């Protein structure tokens, strides 16, 4: 009897030990961190950092995100057409002619554009393509031939600005068609397209069961969950002053959130020693000159993208008011003198 009890005890002990170890292992699920980058979408570099069980699993997952991102890139492209899909170029090419059947995601994007136009008092205008294309042309020329770089003549800008009325963008949701009533107008979703796409692939990543990923499409950063140890991702806000030795003005913690920055220091061209950046204020037809950069932290990357552009187009005091009025949205401005302003809830680790 005693022996039997003893044996049973030993057996129980061994089982307990093994089960305990197995259970705790399950809870832990040790994963490694991987990173990948590619260039094929939105004319920028996309970096995906995340935790996966193996390199193969990571590549399999990020490959799906890359394809999805490419899909949006093609849908929102205004320079190229692609076989078998109607994209924004198709809509622009048929301006004043006929409605074009499009993917429901294009319609959703355009609706976001219209919504943001209203929310930002017209500081975001996705129907501003006619003016933007003039700037695009002059910028390309100016970069190819810096000595001969020119600013587009004011008359030309004003002439084109007559064809930027967003109310003439007609969306028929029932038919799933889009039509530009003004034959001279064109769409350019540069201020929201990338953000919208990032938001969609963030959601797609969650659907795929990816839960610890950081996606950055050209500095448009979105966090799927936190890091594997459940601490937030640490994201640096780049210093717009490229002469400075400080790469970042500071960092923010990101978990299931997104941060997007608009600045004048990345894409620009010089005319007579003056910098003209790629963001154009729809009110003036000129690049705004309020601040070097604005970052917006919120839950939706499309919103963040649109808002950062809108705030870049506004005076800081006006922008602060707008940011404070939006729940769950915070903004940070880097001022011309290098100083920092931010909305009341922005948690920011300043570089000392």
């Amino acid at each position, binding site marked *: 009897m005693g022996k039997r009890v003893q044996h049973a005890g030993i057996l129980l002990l061994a089982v307990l*030990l093994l089960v305990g*170890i197995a259970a705790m292992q399950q809870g832990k699920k*040790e994963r490694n961190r991987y990173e990948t980058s590619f260039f094929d979408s939105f004319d920028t570099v996309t970096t995906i950092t995340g935790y996966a069980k193996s390199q193969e699993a990571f590549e399999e997952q990020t490959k799906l995100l890359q394809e999805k991102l490419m899909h949006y890139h093609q849908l929102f492209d205004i320079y190229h057409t692609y076989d078998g899909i109607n994209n924004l170029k198709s809509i622009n090419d048929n301006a004043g002619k006929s409605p074009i059947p499009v993917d429901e995601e294009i319609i959703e994007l355009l609706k976001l554009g219209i919504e943001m136009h209203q929310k930002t008092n017209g500081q975001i205008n996705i129907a501003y393509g006619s003016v933007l294309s003039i700037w695009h042309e002059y910028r390309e020329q100016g970069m190819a031939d810096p000595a001969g770089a020119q600013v587009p003549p004011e008359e030309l800008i004003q002439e084109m600005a007559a064809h930027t009325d967003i109310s003439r963008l007609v969306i028929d949701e029932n038919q799933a068609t889009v039509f530009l009533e003004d034959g001279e107008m064109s769409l350019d979703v540069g201020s929201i397209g990338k953000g919208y796409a990032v938001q969609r692939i963030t959601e797609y990543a969650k659907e795929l069961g990816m839960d610890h990923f950081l996606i950055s499409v050209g500095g448009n950063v979105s966090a799927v969950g936190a890091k594997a140890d459940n601490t937030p991702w640490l994201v640096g806000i780049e210093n717009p002053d490229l002469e400075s030795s400080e790469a970042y003005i500071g960092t923010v913690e990101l978990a299931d959130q997104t941060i997007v920055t608009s600045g004048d220091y990345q894409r620009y061209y010089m005319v007579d020693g003056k910098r003209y950046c790629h963001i154009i204020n729809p009110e003036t037809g000129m690049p705004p000159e309020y601040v070097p950069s604005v970052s917006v932290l919120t839950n939706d990357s499309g919103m963040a993208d649109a808002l950062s552009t809108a705030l870049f187009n506004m005076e800081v005091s006006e922008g602060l008011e707008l940011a404070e009025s939006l729940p769950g949205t915070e903004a940070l401005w880097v001022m011309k003198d290098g100083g920092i302003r931010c909305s009341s809830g922005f948690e920011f680790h300043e570089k000392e």
Partner: protein
Amino acid sequence: MAKKTAYMGMLTALAFVLSYIEFLIPINLGIPGVKLGLANLVTIVALYTMGVKEACTLSLVRIVLNGFTFGNPAAMLYSLAGGILSLLAMIGARRIKLFSVTGVSVLGGVFHNLGQIMAAVLVVENARLLYYFPVLVLSGTLAGTVIGILAALIIKRLDKLIREQNQ
């Protein structure tokens, strides 16, 4: 029989107290739940004054008791792994009769720590924890030596006591 039960109860209480002391002065080896194993003292005393079976029972009771009182599942798991390995090492070391109580205790201490770290490696799935190996051998040796000397003193007195009572 009654005497034996009383003796076991006393040793269990002592082990419990020692574990409590250890709980009060935790040493941080970088692995949560890994401890020095002061309560080994009682296990050794039981092993020498009573026998293998009693030492095993005592050890198990102590671990479960402590696990529920002071610890968390992780700590209990580590103690269990450490306790079992330590016990096996001490039983083996005592049988080969090469060492005195101190030597047996030293081996018990070292294997106690090794058992814990092995359980930790399995749980965390991170072999880098083995970097703690030298620290654990060192701490196991030192703790084992101190405990062994103490145990030798206690066993000497208890032995006399038990023998006198049994006569």
